[in-house]
């Protein structure tokens, strides 16, 4: 596909993503209605509701931040449009990740306590999915992050990513060691502490990457 064709197909892709996101939000009402009529219990209703909302928010976010390849230049040297989009995506992933981690962790532990093992693992998978998304985007494995590979500042991104990952690794290692020591008082604490250690590790990597880019942009602005 040529560059101009890719750019022309971008609104259609964005529209498709937005459409599925809207459908997911509409579908989110279905489990609530079924719960109201006594067809689902509270745990099953909230699990289905959250699944629909996650799909809706994820695809809605992708529709908003989708950028066609190759990256269109904004006119400013070395300042393609993909980097601010990616920065916003990383920051929003970090914030949303904290909310989902806090909520999902409590729900997973509570579901396991009530012997709802399937619901418990569904909540836990949701938490892990969010914990995976941020570092995967940073590594360029997510659809939005893939565009970073074609960035004119690829070398710079590579160096920033390496530094950011090292920060994340240290936080994750220290967090894991801390979770181990905290769990000595009560082993069940591990299921509360470990997801936050994972979130913190991924988040530090993402925020460090965004911060390094901001610093580089500032330096570029000062120079020219």
């Amino acid at each position, binding site marked *: 596909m040529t560059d101009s064709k890719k750019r022309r197909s971008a609104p259609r892709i964005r529209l498709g993503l937005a459409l599925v996101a809207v459908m997911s939000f509409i579908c989110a009402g279905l489990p609530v209605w079924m719960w109201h009529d006594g067809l689902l219990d509270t745990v099953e209703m909230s699990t289905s509701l959250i699944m629909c909302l996650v799909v809706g928010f994820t695809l809605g976010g992708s529709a908003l931040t989708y950028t066609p390849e190759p990256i269109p230049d904004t006119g400013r040297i070395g300042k393609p449009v993909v980097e601010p989009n990616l920065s916003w995506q990383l920051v929003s992933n970090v914030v949303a990740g904290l909310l989902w981690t806090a909520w999902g962790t409590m729900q997973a532990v509570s579901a396991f306590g009530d012997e709802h093992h399937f619901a418990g693992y569904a909540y836990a998978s949701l938490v*892990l999915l969010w914990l995976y998304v941020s570092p995967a985007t940073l590594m360029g494995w997510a659809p939005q992050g893939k565009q970073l590979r074609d960035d004119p500042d690829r070398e710079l991104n590579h160096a920033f990513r390496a530094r950011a*990952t090292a920060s994340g690794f240290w936080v994750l290692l220290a967090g894991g060691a801390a979770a*181990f020591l905290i769990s000595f008082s009560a082993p069940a604490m*591990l299921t509360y502490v470990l997801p936050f250690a994972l979130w913190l590790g991924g988040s530090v990597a993402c925020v460090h990457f965004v911060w390094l880019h901001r610093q580089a942009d500032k330096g570029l602005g000062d120079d020219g």
Partner: protein
Amino acid sequence: MGGNTRQRAGESYRDRVQRDWVRRITVLPGATLGITLIAMMRADEWLSGEDPGLSGVILAGAAAINLLLIPLMLMGWDGGSRKQKRLLEDELTRAYRASAITCAFWMLLVGAMGVYLVGLWKPHVAVVALPMVLWVAAATAALRFAQLHRRAEREMEAYD
């Protein structure tokens, strides 16, 4: 063999220092594996109530801190490496370190996720397994770094 010996004899002081440093990094995971296993056993005894003494907790804490030594050395933040920083730090080392740490980061992320899932089912097992996951991640960083260094050395020798 003879070519290799001549090559080694003719290598610079910097090469020798780097090789010794990489060797130390390679050995470190093996040295810390013992204390990690002991910490796991003591943690198991402490959690199951067999040994209520504080020595098990202290040993487990020491093992957890000990694990930080491997990446600390890999980053060149320990005393010995800092003294020789001028000789150890170059573009290639930085690139290998980045690759090794990224590999370890993912190993730790996936391992900790696995421990979390196990912890929902059996918290006791997860707590005992956690030091091993931390060790595997730290060892991955060290061994990946050593592997990249060795490969570069072999390629250089073949080129010469």
